[in-house]
């Protein structure tokens, strides 16, 4: 290999390596969140500094880059789950139980989105359950079942074979919850069966 070819090759490796490394690390930090920026709690992750003047650049980039019109955490806290309680990616071929106790907020909801952020069409026109309408046990506990197969109770029908994610929205959350995002008791996401 001639000396000129070697220099050209080095420059190409330098450009692709540097830009690729920078872009991929930024993409990960903006979508998944760094530990110092996003808070994880079981399957769930949230960005607590959203819509604040003091928000860090990664939080700002996460919301600007995705085009989400955020509200302050006083107004609503949004948790996102892409994995079940065992750390496996959520799969539309499987049945999941989202189960827990009543959450300390004015109202809350569980919504299913496909991997592109859209709602999944189904004949029941059902994409979520909120705390007012869902069936609950006398002690306030609940189970929302996400499944491609008909289920009794709070069933959100899904179809397809790709990944999906859940959003848990809590509006006007009590301080006991909003001040303890990483430790509050949030619903578990348990995989039951896969077709």
């Amino acid at each position: 290999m001639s000396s000129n070819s070697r220099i050209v090759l080095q420059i190409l490796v330098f450009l692709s390596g540097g830009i690729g490394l920078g872009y991929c690390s930024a993409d990960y930090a903006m979508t998944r969140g760094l530990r110092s920026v996003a808070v994880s709690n079981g399957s769930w992750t949230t960005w607590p500094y959203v819509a604040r003047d003091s928000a860090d650049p990664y939080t700002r980039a996460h919301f600007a880059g995705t085009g989400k019109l955020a509200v302050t955490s006083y107004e609503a806290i949004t948790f996102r789950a892409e994995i079940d309680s065992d750390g496996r990616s959520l799969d539309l071929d499987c049945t999941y139980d989202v189960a827990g106790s009543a959450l300390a907020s004015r109202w809350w909801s569980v919504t299913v989105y496909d991997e592109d952020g859209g709602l999944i069409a189904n004949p029941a026109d059902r994409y979520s359950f909120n705390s007012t309408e869902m069936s609950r046990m006398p002690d306030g506990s609940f189970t929302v079942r996400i499944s491609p197969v008909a289920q009794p109770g709070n069933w959100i029908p899904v179809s397809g074979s790709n990944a999906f994610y859940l959003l848990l929205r809590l509006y006007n959350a009590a301080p006991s919850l909003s001040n303890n995002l990483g430790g509050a008791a949030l619903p578990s996401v348990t995989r039951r069966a896969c077709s």
Partner: protein
Amino acid sequence: MRRWVFWSVATVLLATVAHLSAVLFAPMVDIGRRMAAFETAAPVNTLRKMPPVGPGPSILVEPSPDISYGFCRFDISALPLKVSAPIPDSYWSVSVYSDTGENLYTINDAQTGVRRLELIIADGSKPVPEGGAILDVPEDSILYPSPVRYGLVVLRGFIPDRSQRRIIDSTIASATCAPLAPA
């Protein structure tokens, strides 16, 4: 050996520049494109109720099916904007966003304590006239001095269950958004 060190350091420096550029600048392009979608959806200073949330394309990212939405693009460079909206019995909020999607202000039904919100969004950079207030703001109205002249107002009304969808939808649809003429 020295050459490898040079290229390694140069690659790390380039990666740092690319990382910071992606974090600081690229999202602004994305949100600009997203906000531009509202421009084609409704005229300025006019409130539009969004169609019920469902599968398919939406002007909002990750819209909630449990919420009825209305929005109003605003331009307060000439006149302030008056948002007038009845407040239903269930959760309801109005948020003001800059044209870069930044949440500037939000108020909900529990905070207003009234049955009808009158929110006036005025250009906060305009000086207060000598010996007078910026505006003749009616009693029970809320004045928000906005740091930006162009942006978006978003109304959110909680739909507790399907039987109440029509009521909440019509409440959002009856809200108005219009320039406030001088007194």
